[in-house]
């Protein structure tokens, strides 16, 4: 398990074999942030099927060092783009079973729209930029998951999209 926290403690990144506690992550975002009125969290779980194939488990490989660096950079980009109070990212590696938690992304902000946008932005960039690779188990076979064009498209949405001016954000 490697944990990386920047000076301001606004960004917290962890890449770990162990499962994570969604409640702990949520409470950490909630703590001492009385001016943050919105918390959005995303959790990705191991699904029982993928592209029509039964899935029984996953193996997650990563590039130690670059992974943490890449996730911190994505969090920084999100904080530069929206006024976020805090960002927490946890990504698991190694062997995962059905319905296991894979990834947590949580974001706090004064206003809900920034929190939703920031959280989805981080997921879209994580999916296409952070050096993780999934191997999928289905019965006796194990195959490397292929990258999806739809994920690249999801990320590219943000490249063209201008940030909504603060004055127009809903509370």
């Amino acid at each position, binding site marked *: 398990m490697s944990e990386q926290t920047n000076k301001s403690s606004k960004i917290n990144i962890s890449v770990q074999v162990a499962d994570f506690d969604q409640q702990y992550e949520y409470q950490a975002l909630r703590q001492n942030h009385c001016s943050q009125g919105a918390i959005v969290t995303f959790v990705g779980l191991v699904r029982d099927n993928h592209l029509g194939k039964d899935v029984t488990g996953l193996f997650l490989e990563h*590039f130690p060092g670059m992974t943490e*660096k890449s996730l911190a950079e994505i969090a920084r980009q999100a904080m530069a783009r929206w006024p976020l109070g805090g960002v927490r990212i946890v990504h698991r590696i190694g062997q995962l079973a059905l319905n296991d938690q894979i*990834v947590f992304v949580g974001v706090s902000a004064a206003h809900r729209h920034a929190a939703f946008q920031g959280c989805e932005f981080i997921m879209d960039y*994580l*999916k296409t*930029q952070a*050096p993780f690779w999934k191997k999928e188990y289905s019965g006796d076979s194990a195959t*490397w998951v*292929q990258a999806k064009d739809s994920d690249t498209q999801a990320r590219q949405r943000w490249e063209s999209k201008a940030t909504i001016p603060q004055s127009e954000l809903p509370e």
Partner: protein
Amino acid sequence: MKVLFFGQVRERLATQQISVTSPPQNILLLRQELAERGEVWFEVLHQRDLLVAVNQTLCDDKQEITSTDEVAFFPPVTGG
């Protein structure tokens, strides 16, 4: 120079890490040099979607390299 491989690339090459003693000037030349190691190496190093990072930052074929750099080759990422 340390060269790392990850994911399906690592598995196909059956290689996690190699050491290149006198590296060429840039990534393109390094790919060409490694491609000469055998049939699978040729295939993998010519994959159109192969990604490369120098010192843990994504870059392209024009990136210049020196013997103290760490280079990594890997397929498109599939985390999350």
